[in-house]
Structures are given as C-alpha cells and as structure tokens.
C-alpha cells in the first residue's frame, strides 16, 4: 500500500499556480496536511482523489500512475470533500454504495454498521433537513468508508463543527487509521496534533515541511518562551517576535513567544507545541519569500 506524489504541479487558467513541485511518499498512517487558507491543500486533495488532473508531475498508486488509470485507486478510495449537501442520509448512502459498485445486500449491512460507527442510527429517523453540521460530516465519513477504503482523504473535515463534534471526529479518524492511508487536510493544528503520524505543511503551493511530528517539534526545541508583559507592551512584543498565543492573567499578559533567544531576562522556557512549530515554519517561509528580511 503506497501512494507516491512526484513533482506535482498545478496551474489554473490565468497562470495562477496552486501547487509547485510537490513530493510526498505515503504509507499506512495519518498524514496531517497543514497550511493556511489558499495554500493549495484542496487542489492537492482533489488531485489525489482523481478529480483534478495535475499540470505536471504524477501520482502513483502502488507504482501505477493514476492520471491515465484512476480506477484502481478509485476502487479503494474514500473521499470526504470540504462541503457537500445531503437530503436523506439513508438514501444518500444507498445511492453511493450502488455508485461504488457494492452489491445491494452487502451495502445494506455495511450501511447499518457504518451508521452505528458514526452514531447516526437514531438520526436516520430525523425529519428531513434536520441535520446539523456535525451530523452531516458523520454522514460524510460514513459514505467515505462504504467501500472499506485503503486510502481515505478528508478535506477540512472539522470546519464549522463545535468543539465537542471536532473531538469526536478526530477520535473517529484515529480509530479508523489502522491499515489505511489517511490524508487529513486542515488549517487547524489541534486537529492533526491528536491523530497525525506524519505532518506536511503546504504554503503557497509549496511543501515546506514533511516529517514526523517529533522532528517538527525538534525544530523549535528551546525556542519557545513565556513572557509576561502589560497590555500596552504587547503590540511592541508582537512587532519584534513571533507570538503564538496570549492569555490575560492578573499579573499581565502571558505571551508565548517563538524566538531563538530569550526575549526577556525573565522569560521562561516552555515545551514546544505543534502550533509553535507550524507558526515557526510559516514565519520562516515568509521571511524567505521576503528575501531574508525579518
């Protein structure tokens, strides 16, 4: 089970480059694909889901190129796009099961199992139009799992979900990862922090990082600090340093700063988080684009 992305580039009409020379080698596990809005994540997802053709480069599924022969990948693919509409969950799942070529009897059993898995058995009876964002996403993941996919692609699955639904969805993905390639695209770091076995960061169509979480954390090891400043001093601190988060306390604003050296004498060293590593990587990329100017 191997999905290989080689020199993948995509240009849209009007010479807008969405992806540039992307390399990825994927095996079983969860790849967390991080990047700001407009980084090219959805384009990459659509290419991997065989919907969009790349401008150059290739995608290989078990050493077979998918551009000319997408069927072998499609047969084992589950895809949950960023947004989709559902009218009736059961009919929708039955419909997609038939489209995916699953025999009717097997489809019925499979759908029943999946509805239990995503905790939607009761909701099936719900009146039409009564699906919340979280329920729609659970229907989405159920349809993606209909054919017991070896490759599961989920694009921004937690957008619009409340915190409880997000946690539930992340847990579900984690349980499903097993012997599958799961590609989880998001711009929310906490989504991948919990489940990803590997993390790739895409910025302006370029892959700026592709490693295990520990390696990304090592990038900012010894570079994360906590400083306490007054509210008035905070803007100046932000101008000078990369501030990944702030929290107001009775003694002032506790700012989490990513910097090579301690920003203040009183600064306290902290264990880095993936959020720090992600922001650090983005900042480094931005500086590079600016020609090295800080």
């Amino acid at each position: 089970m191997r999905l290989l992305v080689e020199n993948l580039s995509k240009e849209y009409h009007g010479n807008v480059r969405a992806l540039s020379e992307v390399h990825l080698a994927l095996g079983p596990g969860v790849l967390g694909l991080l990047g700001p809005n407009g980084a090219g994540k959805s384009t990459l997802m659509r290419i991997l889901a065989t919907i969009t053709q790349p401008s150059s480069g290739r995608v290989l599924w078990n050493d077979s190129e998918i551009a000319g022969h997408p069927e072998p990948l499609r047969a084992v693919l589950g895809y949950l796009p960023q947004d989709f509409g559902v009218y009736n969950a059961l009919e929708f799942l039955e419909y997609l099961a038939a489209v995916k070529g699953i025999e009717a009897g097997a489809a019925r059993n499979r759908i029943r199992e999946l509805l239990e898995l995503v905790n939607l058995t009761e909701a099936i009876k719900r009146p039409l139009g009564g699906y919340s964002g979280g329920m729609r996403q659970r229907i989405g993941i159920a349809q993606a799992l209909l054919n017991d996919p070896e490759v599961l692609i989920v694009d921004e699955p937690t957008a619009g979900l409340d915190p409880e639904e997000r946690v539930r969805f992340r847990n579900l993905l984690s349980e499903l990862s097993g012997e599958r390639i799961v590609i989880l695209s998001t711009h929310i770091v906490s989504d991948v922090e919990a489940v990803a076995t590997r993390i790739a960061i895409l910025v302006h169509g370029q892959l700026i990082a592709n490693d295990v979480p520990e390696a990304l954390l090592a990038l900012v090891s010894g570079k994360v600090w906590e400083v306490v400043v007054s509210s008035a001093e905070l803007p100046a601190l932000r101008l000078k340093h990369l501030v990944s988060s702030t929290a107001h306390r009775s003694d002032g604003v506790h700012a989490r700063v990513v910097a090579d050296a301690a920003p203040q004498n009183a600064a306290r060293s902290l264990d880095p988080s993936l959020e720090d590593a992600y922001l650090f990587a983005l900042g480094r990329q931005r500086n590079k684009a600016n020609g090295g100017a800080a």
Partner: protein
Amino acid sequence: MTKAIAVWAIARADFLERVRRYSFLLTVAFALYLGYLATTGKLMLRVGNMQGIFNSAWIGGLLSLVASAFISLAGFYFVKNTIERDRRTGVGQIIAATPVSKFTYLLGKVVSNFTVLGLMVVILAASGIVMQLVRGEDRHIDLWKLLAPFLLLALPAMAVVAALAVLFEAIPFLRGGLGNIVYLCVWIAGLSLPLAANTHALDLVGMFVVADSAINAAHLSFQNSGFQFDLGYFDYPLSTFRWEGITWTAEMVISRVIWLGFSLGLVALSAILFDRFDPSRGRLPRERQKITPIGVPERHIASTQVTATTLTPLAVKQAHSRLPGILIAELRLMLKGQKWWWYLVATGLVVASAAVPSAEARGMVLAFAWLWPVLLWSSMGIRETRDQTYQLIFSAPHPIARQLPAAWMAGVVVALLTGCGFGFRLLLGGNLKGLMAWAIGLLFIPTLALSLGVWSGTGKPFEVLYSLLCYVGPLHAIPQFDFMGSAPATAATPYPLIYLIATCVLAFAALLGRKRQLKS
C-alpha cells in the same frame, strides 16, 4: 450488471430528489394544464379547415403531438439542473472519486430526466381518457389507438430531450443562460425546419407521422392541408372528419426507435465533454481567485504580528444610503465581466436600429438589440440568492426602498442604452406614439426580469419567456406580443397600454416578492 445497478441508483436518487421539490408539482401542473387546454379546445390540431372527431385515435394523435411539441420545450428547462445540483451540493466530487464511469453517471441522469418527462407524458395520456369522455363525441375508448402515439411518438422525443438536457449541462458554455436561449432556438428550428424543408428525417416530434395519416383521412393533399397547431378559439366553425389513427408500419417504428439510439449517442457525446466535476477544467475555483501568487509575501500569521490599526473615522455618518450610489453599484455589477465584443455588438445594434432606412427592419433590429442583453436582465432579482449575499443585502439599510429600485433602474438603464438608437430615430421623426410604445417596452423588460427573478429565484423563466416573447412578438410582428413597439403599427393599437398596466402589476409583484424574501 454493476453498471446497470449504478445507472438505476443514480436515476432513482435523482428522481426521488426531484419528486420532493416544489418545482415537481409545477411539472405535473403544466402537463395537466396542457391536457385542459386540449380538452377545452383552446389548443387544437387543424387539418385545413377541419378537425377530427374526438375519438381515441384523434385524441391520442393530438395529445402526443402536444406532448412532443410543448413538453419538449418546458420539460427541457424543468430537467436541466440535475448535474448542476450535484455540482452545487458537492456530491459531484464524491461521485467523481468513485469508480463510476462518466457514461454510466450521465446515463443515470438521462434516465432520471426521461422519467420526469415520461411522467408528464403519462399524465397527458391519462387526461386523454378524461378528455374523450368529457367531449363525448365517441365514447368507445380504444387504448392502443389512444396510447400508441404516446409510446412511439412522444416518448422517443422525450428521450432526446432528456439527453439534450444532459448534453447542455456537460458543455460549460451551455450550462447557464446562454444554453437556455440556444435550446429555445434549437426547439424552434426543430419544429419548423422539418415542415419547411418537408423532410421526415428530422421530424423528432412525429408531426409527419400524424399529418400524413390524418391528411389522407381528410382527403386533402399535404400542400394545401395547413396541418397545424392552433392556440385560442376560432371565430368560424371547423368541419369534422373521422380519423381511425395511424397504421403503424415497421419503417415508422424503426424511424422512431432510431431517435432512442440518437439519444444514447448524445449521452456518449456528453461523456466525452463532461468535466467529471473537475473545477480546474472550468473557471478558476472561487477559493483560488483570492490567492496571492507565489513569491509575493503575505501576512498569514495575523495573530503574531500586529501594527497599530486605526480606521479613518467617517466624517458624516450616512443615515440613508444614496440611491444614485447604489444604482451605479448595481449597474457595475450587472455589466461586470462583459467582454469588449459584447459592447461592440451592442453598439452595432444601436447604430443599426437608428440608421436602417425601413421602419420594419429597424423594428427587427430593435428586437435583436433588446435580445442581446437578456443574460444581464435575467440576473436581476436572483443575484442575492444565487451568490448567497442575501443576508448582507437584506440587512443593509432600506433593502426595499433603495436596493430594489436601484436594481430595477440599472435594468432600465441597460434597456435605454441598448435601445436608444431606435428611440432616437422615433424622436427625430416626431413619432410620439411610437416613442411611447418604445418607452413602455423599455420599462416592461427589466420589470418582467426583476419580478420573475425575485419570485422564481432563477434566471431561467425570464430567459425562456422573454426570448419566446421576442420571437413570437417583435420578430414575427404579432401586435399582441409586440411589447416593445417594434412594428410601426403597434403604436396605434391598445397593446402598449396593456403592457404598461402589466409593467405596473409586475413591479408590484416584485415588491411583494422581495418583502416575502425579507420575512422568510
């Protein structure tokens, strides 16, 4: 077998989705209305000055031609939205990632379209039985004679229409308003060309099959038969003749079955042209349009670096938004994206409608000049729902007192700019009555567009109705439908006044429609 199951699943899901929609009731109502028109004699088939006795054969022939001719128009617009729905809801991308082939998917959609159209035909056929009993001219119901024309004439025509609807959705530039107008032209050509050229090969509707047999029974020759549909009552009585129906030959049946093969060919063509929901094959996806190209620095870590942000205070806070400002904004929005050649053609038509010497010819040019911006007008009243900006627009100050009139006025300005050549010539000639008729047309068009847009939420009804009106009225100089005063004689008739009243009613309807939108 798996492919057949997939086709069935796609068709079933699509059909069920449609049946639940309010618009499906409209399709049923339309079929019933056609049946009503035929039963009450408002829609009749005439062979010279004769019509058939209302036996099963005549009713079957009449209603199957009604189905082929009229459902092929309205039905197309009812069903031409099936791929678009999958595209809009995002379900298309899920389907695109499955092993289903483009042909299988599109065939499923065609089958769904055909089921909807076929249901309309079935309703019409059922109304035929009622019609025969109500008319009471011959109470013996011969089911084969009544239903065979539906089966062999109407249904193959519906299969072609179902496939054409999918083809139009598969071709990017025919998906939208342009496709709606192009189909209207195809429909007009499809009805008129076979009769004009006297060629049976292009006869999708099956007009010749019925005509040849009925004309024989009426002992007339084809040239002087005047075999035609008529809408409305006659002021002179028609004599009757007895027609025992079509004697079906193998050649006739094969000629109809060929149309089924043709529709399968259309599905294959659609499969070649269909983009399989790949957004990169069409226009730039929406989320990409705002992307800064690589290399241009962007501040994407907004939370980490902040400069002191201050906004210039507004010197005078506007309690009321200004109408001229909104009008200009609406006009810019309406004209946004038009290419240079659009303006060139519009200018050419303005010049021609002023410069052509013959008044009749100028009228024809005006019809084209006011047909040219049809896609601009058809977006009136629907933009807010189509672009999902209604929450912003309707929460702005005075959405009814400012925005709606501004949108309407923008439509009037477009009508004024594109029709000014004709108006200028009337003014120059001192033809004030003609000028009045023209001005009423100028107000009528955007009002019709706005009203239909607000109530239907789609540009389709305006595109079809307006194009049809232009074709029947100004282009054929029928004064009842000459809403723009293009024919010199129209100004002297009461019709401009009727269109003025219609304009007022439509404006009021638009207002009510927008109020309803605000409340919902």
